[in-house]
């Protein structure tokens, strides 16, 4: 496709073409209207002047007769900037006036309104002028002609016409020019968007659209698209993470499972050995299923597809329910689990997922916090409103998490060395983080002096 063809097919071009056409029609009509109005105005002025002259001469004639008219014309004819006068006898012989030559048929056209004629001012000069004249018949067979030279008006009209034509041409020219620059700019931005998209399609997910910082509609579009791209990138890497993790953390126990069965089969055929092997196989596969479910749950929560289960829930009730579920376990461990709900807070959330997040946090506290012997375990689960946020906290007085590791433990499968001996998939906290994100909130690990405090902060009003 030629460059021109490409330009012609753009929306910018088509729109500009329409605008230019409409604008040109408007500009030309405007010019025509102005010229026409100016013409009418000038002609009216001339007619009025001629009529005034005639009225003046008629007044002279009434008081002083033909002679007075002759005299007045004689006087006026030679003043600078005078009107045009001519008096002839019945045969057309010039008696007085400042015109030397008029068309011969002019006297036959007398009586009607002022007419436009060409005339010569002095005999033999050869240059013809244009005038508007009124011809009258005087008593005694004389013809009188009174008029105004309209050459200057014609010139003036021409100047106006030319100026307006130039103005119109200039306006159209500027419109075309500005269209050219605007559409070039638009095309450039569009081309940059297409280039970036093509790069992204080709696999470079880190590509982002250019934001010029002018805050114009292209910037707004680019910002929205960039947010979308960031989300897609995040989801895709999440998916990649999941597959990597599935490969690693599911294959390891699967291999273990397989080797065990293989080992038992290779050994002596003993019914009790077989039974043991089968039982441990079931146990192992149950554990695998749990890990798998947790992974899927995280992936789906992060993808936001659990939205369907959102409803109006009261956070305090969830906190109390889950705490009540775990309270006997804590007590059995020689610890103490208390609930602190400052006020009821209602928000749109998934009761199931918030419940599970709290359960995971309490589970973690029960599992990992008791490492610090000599101190009875104390867990406090709280729900409070802080500004426009709902804040859920699970605090323990255990060994805590070193500051350097706090960010890391939120990732999938990350388990601190100290807790390797404990059973668990290493997915508990990442699910909590995913649940927080699903509710547009945040999760934060802090120091409880001593112990760990996990804070989930969720906006109560989500847009």
């Amino acid at each position, binding site marked *: 496709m030629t460059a021109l063809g490409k330009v012609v097919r753009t929306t910018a071009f088509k729109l500009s073409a329409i605008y230019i056409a409409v604008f040109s029609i408007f500009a030309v009509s405007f010019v025509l209207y102005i010229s026409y109005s100016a013409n009418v105005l000038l002609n009216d002025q001339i007619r009025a002047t001629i009529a005034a002259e005639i009225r003046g001469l008629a007044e002279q004639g009434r008081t002083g007769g033909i002679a007075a008219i002759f005299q007045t014309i004689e006087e006026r004819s030679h003043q600078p900037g005078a009107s045009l006068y001519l008096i002839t006898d019945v045969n057309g012989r010039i008696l007085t006036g400042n015109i030397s030559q008029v068309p011969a048929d002019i006297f036959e056209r007398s009586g009607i309104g002022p007419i436009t004629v060409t005339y010569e001012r002095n005999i033999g000069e050869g240059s013809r002028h244009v005038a508007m004249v009124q011809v009258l018949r005087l008593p005694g067979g004389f013809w009188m002609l009174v008029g105004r030279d309209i050459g200057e008006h014609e010139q003036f009209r021409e100047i106006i016409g030319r100026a307006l034509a130039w103005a119109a041409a200039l306006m159209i020219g500027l419109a075309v020019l500005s269209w050219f620059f605007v559409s070039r700019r638009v095309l450039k931005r569009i081309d940059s968007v297409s280039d970036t998209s093509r790069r992204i399609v080709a696999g470079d997910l880190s590509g982002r659209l250019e934001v010029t910082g002018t805050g114009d509609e292209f910037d707004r579009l680019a910002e929205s698209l960039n947010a979308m791209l960031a989300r897609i990138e995040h989801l895709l890497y999440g998916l990649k993470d999941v597959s990597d993790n599935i490969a690693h953390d599911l294959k390891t126990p699967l291999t273990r499972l397989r080797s065990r069965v293989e080992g038992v089969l290779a050994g002596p055929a003993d019914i009790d050995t077989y039974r043991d092997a089968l039982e441990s196989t079931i146990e192992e*596969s*149950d554990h695998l*299923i*749990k890990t798998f*479910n947790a992974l*899927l*749950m995280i992936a*789906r929560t992060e993808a936001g*597809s*659990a*939205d*369907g*289960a959102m409803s109006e829930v009261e956070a305090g009730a969830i906190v109390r*329910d*889950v705490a*009540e*579920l*775990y309270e*006997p*376990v804590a007590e*059995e461990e020689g610890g103490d689990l208390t609930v602190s709900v400052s006020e009821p807070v209602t928000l749109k959330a*998934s009761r*199931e*997922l918030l*419940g*599970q997040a709290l*359960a*995971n946090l309490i*589970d973690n506290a*029960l*599992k990992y916090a008791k490492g610090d012997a000599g101190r009875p375990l104390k867990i406090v689960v709280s729900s409070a409103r802080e500004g426009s946020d709902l804040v859920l906290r699970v605090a323990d007085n255990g060994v805590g998490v070193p500051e350097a590791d706090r960010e890391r433990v939120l990732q999938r499968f990350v388990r601190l060395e100290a807790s390797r001996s404990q*059973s*668990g998939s290493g997915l*508990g906290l990442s699910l909590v983080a995913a649940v927080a994100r699903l509710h547009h909130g945040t999760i934060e690990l802090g120091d409880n002096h001593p112990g760990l405090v996990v804070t989930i902060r969720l906006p109560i009003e989500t847009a």
Partner: protein
Amino acid sequence: MQREQRDPMRLLIIEDDKEAAAYLCKALREAGHVADHADDGETGAAMAIEGGYDVLVVDRMLPKRDGLSIIEELRRRNDETPALILSALGQVDDRVTGLRSGGDDYLAKPYAFTELLARVEALARRRRPGEAETVYRVGDLELDRLGHTVTRAGQSVPLQPREFRLLEYLMKNAGQVVTRTMLLENVWDYHFDPQTNVIDVHISRLRGKIDKGFETPLLHTVRGAGYMIRDSAR
């Protein structure tokens, strides 16, 4: 497995995985029930509409016809046969759609057979008379659902509200295995899988209140499956 003798149930398994279905039917028959199998949605729908089953076990994704649409059609025909939905999905929102389309219970694959059996039996029991009983009795244990009181051998047993609901659910399904997830779902209304033995601790507390000091225990642990409340003296 300890289990009370009772009338056999007639079950319809609609499941396209032939091996899984064969295993399931065999295990159900061994448990004393009658199980029919349909391996696609259309056959399954035809058999279900014909009727005569106590419980339907319906896989969600089936060839020819979606499992949920079968249940929806039955409900439109005012057929209230309890249906257990099996699904490889098992997320919260899938469960919600499953139950909304008329299913009575939802079980995610892969499942333990004991879990499925316990749930199917609980569903079958729902249809039997006794649902409207206001007093549950197991041996000398009595639970008054309206008065919210529990007595054992005439002595009042004070229970916390949650303990009362736990005992109520167990007694409603007296003589049947109730799994930990069933308890979590029905007593606490949560569907996640707690990592710790939370339910066991609640049960042992309850046991301390209703069985302690009595000669015959009523609340039994069924190994590898769950719990059962039952009058073992009978």
